[in-house]
């Protein structure tokens, strides 16, 4: 306990440095709690004895400075600022305890405890990472000859790989099935076959729209139907079996069977 409570103010955080330095380092903070911890440590007392009122001032001042400089501030910093302002007003003007909500003092104590807990984790994580590490300070057998023990299956798999495999596979399938949904296209080849089959029965000028298959005659897919049919019509004109007529720009397009026409004439 002594160890934990004493060591925090001996850490080498930029505590002594000015707030301007901290503002520059905003990116380095892991969220508002991390920032609060750094500010709290500048009070140079046990975290359980820090002045929450002072800490609130420090935090709000810091946030104000950051906003003055028009730096981007993540939403959770502002949420914390609002909460701190609320806490501050409650600390200054004690209210009647409702019994349901936490008193300002309790909220303050809770915050202190949270900061102390985070600080403790920082300390032990440093201790943890200072332990000798496999592959760095001590080593496994470099050439294991291998033995089959009764419990060792020939194949192995760990839970991570199993979960990752499922997540990846599901993700892949979801995306591939999305790309399969291409917009329907009335291909020129299909239009040609259809037009050749139909054109023998239309000796008179007939609007292009009459030749569209039902699935390409309405809505967005009609565009593809018209384009495909027109392209096919051009091909039949080139072969000399079809005549095409458009009386005005952007007006309706008419088709007519050319063979029948020549017979009649």
């Amino acid at each position, binding site marked *: 306990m002594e160890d934990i409570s004493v060591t925090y103010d001996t850490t080498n955080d930029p505590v002594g440095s000015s707030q301007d330095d901290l503002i520059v380092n905003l990116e380095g903070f892991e969220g508002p709690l991390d920032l609060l911890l750094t500010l709290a440590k500048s009070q140079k007392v046990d975290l359980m004895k820090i002045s929450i009122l002072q800490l609130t001032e420090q935090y709000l001042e810091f946030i104000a400075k950051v906003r003055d400089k028009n730096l981007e501030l993540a939403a959770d910093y502002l949420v914390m600022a609002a909460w701190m302002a609320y806490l501050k007003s409650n600390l200054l003007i004690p209210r009647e305890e409702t019994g349901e909500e936490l008193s300002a003092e309790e909220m303050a104590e809770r915050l202190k405890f949270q900061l102390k807990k985070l600080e403790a984790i920082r300390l032990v994580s440093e201790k943890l990472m200072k332990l000798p590490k496999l592959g760095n300070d001590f*080593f496994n057998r*470099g050439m294991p*000859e291998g033995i089959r023990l009764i419990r060792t299956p*020939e194949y192995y*798999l760990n839970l991570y790989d*199993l979960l990752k495999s499922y997540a990846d596979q599901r993700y892949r*399938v979801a995306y591939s099935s999305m790309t399969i949904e291409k917009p329907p296209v009335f291909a020129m080849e299909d239009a040609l076959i259809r037009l050749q089959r139909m054109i023998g029965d239309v000796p008179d000028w007939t609007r292009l729209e009459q030749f569209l298959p039902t699935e390409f005659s309405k809505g967005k897919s009609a565009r593809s139907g018209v384009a495909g049919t027109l392209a096919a019509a051009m091909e039949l004109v080139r072969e000399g079996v079809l005549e095409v007529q458009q009386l005005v720009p952007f007006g309706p397009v008419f088709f007519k069977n050319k063979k029948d026409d020549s017979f009649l004439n």
Partner: protein
Amino acid sequence: MNDKVNNNVMNFPSEHMENVRILEALLFAASEPLDAESLKARLPKGVNLNKLLNIVKAHYENRGVNLIKTGNKWSFKTAVDLSPMMKKEKIVQRKLSKAATETLAIIAYHQPVTRAEVEDIRGVHFSPGTLDLLMELNWVRPIGRKKVPGRPIIYGTTERFLEYFQLEQVSDLPGLEELKAAGLLESRLPPNLDIREPVEIDQSQIEPFGEDENIEDLIQSGHEAE
């Protein structure tokens, strides 16, 4: 006991002991046999390597591990007289293939499933042997027949599967939100992502195998109704 062992250690001339320890550690950790040059390069300057090697060799002479010279290289090997029992079942551990891992994952999350359903979910056909392997490993087993026309065999995971992955029950496998939170799924997900919350098998949906059915035969001959 400790006294005795410490005496053993003390049998080495003390000036050599530290170097002997380094030599042991180097030979133990090396991923290939080491020649005199490599060893010298890693030991303090001016050591008498031959003397050290002889000390180590002598120390391990009658132990379960010996210091062996092959060509001009040195390495530790398990003692020759013990090697038959090591070698007999010496095996190379292999990581389960991607296809088998995926199949296992799908069976675990979507169980109970038929073979056709797994193929449908995966979007590819089984390579022969994938299911066989999973069943051989005793991670997957046929649990009955689906109550639909054709009565296809349905598969699920085994107790052994739970034990191997140290899970209490199938529903302890993480679901969509948890996979996402754990970073196993990207945060932007396609809308049609189909991740199951794994559930325990509802036995009422399953028709148990008939007593006269030889499951082994059905599976091996591939005669399952699909």
